[in-house]
């Protein structure tokens, strides 16, 4: 079935069964492999993308449910988002596999709450598992990015 999804500001045509999770459409159809498979049941957060600015688990969202919503993936952040820069500055990643999802959850958090406190950070980030245990640096990087000018991270 051919359908169109808006990913990172581009209308892209995809050919997938309607029940195909958005995750596999992004990865296998569109070649955007930054969004990761980790559990398939919305438990680990590795597949987190933004749907109209909200952090959502793409492994549990059928492509048919996306409709006209705007999808933002890690590739859509451009590489110079303040959170990405903070991630590099603090050497947050270890194996790195979960980090796309971590960053997308953090983007949604800062868009809603420009200066989150510890409780707000862990509440927003608890759906994202990191088996390497980079949690402490994830918290620190979010705080580091939150100190950046608000306008640069509120636009996504």
């Amino acid at each position, binding site marked *: 079935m051919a359908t169109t999804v808006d990913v990172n500001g581009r209308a892209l045509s995809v050919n997938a*069964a309607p029940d*195909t999770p958005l995750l*596999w459409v992004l990865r296998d159809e569109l070649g955007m492999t930054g969004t990761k498979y980790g559990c398939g049941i919305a438990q680990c957060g590795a597949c987190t993308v933004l749907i109209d600015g909200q952090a959502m688990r793409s492994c549990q969202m059928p492509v048919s449910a996306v409709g006209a919503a705007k999808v933002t993936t890690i590739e859509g952040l451009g590489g110079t988002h303040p959170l990405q820069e903070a991630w590099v500055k603090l050497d947050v990643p270890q194996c790195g596999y*979960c980090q796309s999802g971590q960053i997308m959850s953090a983007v949604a958090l800062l868009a809603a709450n420009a200066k989150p406190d510890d409780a707000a950070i862990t509440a927003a980030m608890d759906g994202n*598992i990191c088996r390497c245990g980079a949690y*402490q640096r994830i918290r620190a990087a979010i705080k580091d990015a939150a100190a950046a000018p608000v306008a640069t991270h509120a636009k996504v």
Partner: protein
Amino acid sequence: MNKPLDTLSAPTRRSLLVGATVVGGALLVGCSIPDVLSAGSKFKPGAFGPFLKLTADGTVTVVSKHIEFGQGSHAGLAAIVAEELDADWSKVVVEQAPANAKLYGTPMMFGMQGTGGSSAINSSWTLLRTAGAAARAMLVDAAAKTWGVPAAEITVSNGIVSHASGKQSGFGPLVAEAAKITPPEAPKLKDPKTFTLVGTNRVRRKDSLVKSNGSARYTQDVTLPDMLVAMVAHAPRFGATVKSFDDSAAKKVAGVFAVHKIATGVAVVANSTWAAKQGRDALKVEWDETKAEKRSSAQMLTAFKDLASGKTPAPEKKGWAAFDAKGDAATATAGTNALEIAYVFPFLAHATMEPMNCVAMVGKGPTRLVFGSQFPTLDQINTAKITTALPGSVDIETLFAGGSFGRRANFASDYVSECVHIAKKVGGGRPVKLVWTREDDMRAGYFRPMVHHTLRVTTDAEGYPATWRHRIVSQSIMKGSPAGTPKLDDSAIEGTKGSPYFKATPVVDAQLLIADTGVPVLWWRSVGATHTAYVMEHTIDQLAKRAGKDPVAYRRALYQKADAKRHLAVLNLAAEKAGWASPAPAGWTRGVAVHESFGSVVAQVAEVKMVDGQPKVGRVVTAIDCGTAISPDQIAAQMEGGTCYGLSAAMYGAITLTDGVVDQGNFDTYRVLRNSEAPTVETHILPSANPPTGVGEPGTPVIGPAVANAILALTGQPTLSQPFVKA
């Protein structure tokens, strides 16, 4: 006890298996093992040797013989080369070595190329210093020749080669001339006191950018022309095989290309991941369970307990084996007022973020694998057995892996072999990507073994151990090795064996009994220490409590008796930084633990409180002696991450079986530590001039007992089984 290299038992035992594989494989015909293992390889290193490439644009490429799966080894290895080369760190990049045991094997792994036992940095220290120093000498000679000045008058600093006359050059313009010079065999190495990069916070990861923008390439991300994706229906019980299957529904799924019966199940091959999963889920398979393990984990544990108590006699051939014995053992069962306790540890899944996967191309030219290979040589050997080829001819491109924690180092190359079998059926060299779902991964076994410890400790008039009787019942990890089950499997006793507390105790009677189950087991980050550190450290606090002594003071006395200087030093450092001498913050209780593994000694003081009946860990002060520190920031990262990995297991980790079927399948049933539960770890590194020792694993086993000791201080109750939070 205080010599780091004496305790690097893991690489030593891992080395045995390769020798056995090669000998057992009848490949050894009058040539060296590395020659055999690399036979068929066409790879040739360049002018600067196998570990370094210099190019005219000034880029310094360090070739890593070790995989990067989180522990920062790429940055550490690159820094060692860059230090001796006096390179500009910003121009240093890291490239993954191809699979070639002769060039990239590790002597203490019997020549096998692989990563494990927290040994990447230790095993590369002199090798890479030499590689860097040799290339530096070649650049200096090239400059001397070009400029017509004596080499002795040339200096190199931060990537610039200079002469007092004012002549200077980056590395790039000198590379062509330097490449013509024969590398010196024994170049002069720097005095470590003059290091300008190693040991500083300038040693940063080289992969943070690609791991923050989605472009880092993992096995899961491999896309090749005509590639097919495979998923496999595996038996629900270990040891079962395919009896029959009906693939009619699977073949009706759009995108399904073929269905193949293989040794480990039934594989569905499709043109996309989702189609492969739909097809796999539509299979109807009947299993032959004649030889399957049908016991529950609770029954296995009862069997272990009965062996420990003697209710079930030990098998004659594989009976109890002593690993520490001194003094009159009879006294260890005598005396009164002994501390008599038993500890229970469950199976644990590694649960890496990236489930196991592999890409293989078989049937056109040499077999090629693309994936996160932890032990390329082993994966070459196992692949070569399936494709009937020379091991060295199997080409492996090693990618980043989304964690391993031991899982990707497997004697049978389990998931690799499965992928190669499927790719062989597909044939024609067509790429096949095997994808395991989370459930496939969690139910495939290769768990940290279930372990049972029984102790009886009597004390002297001052409350210190006088006699120590110790019995361990565990499955053998080494049983999976080609050498078979050793009577004394080091991986089940390391950390108990060699403990300073044994050294400080006059009478010790410590024995191991290997018990079997049908569940495959494997090393799991920090291996034996995952349970031995807990048993030794939590027991010590119970003994200190009975003696009415402070746990830090009690340990100090024992370390002095045992002459365990490194233990004493990290204990003192952690206690000082944690403010042990002053009261803990209101509402928090401190617990301490110290353990040596992989040549490093780690002490932790954890601040703990009980929230809704469950421990909550706040600040964790860590002190580590890991010899020469290469990257202090990455050592801290490993202490932070290792602590979370160990705490996750201690708090929640358990794989259980009901009638032989694994009860857990995903993160909803196999609970792991999340951000709000992760402590804040502070790391202090003990200054040392010794060679570097491991950091990937030693941070994992200490937090469990530190937390249990805080709970003991708070409630007066020991915690004798893991996990702390029962499902």
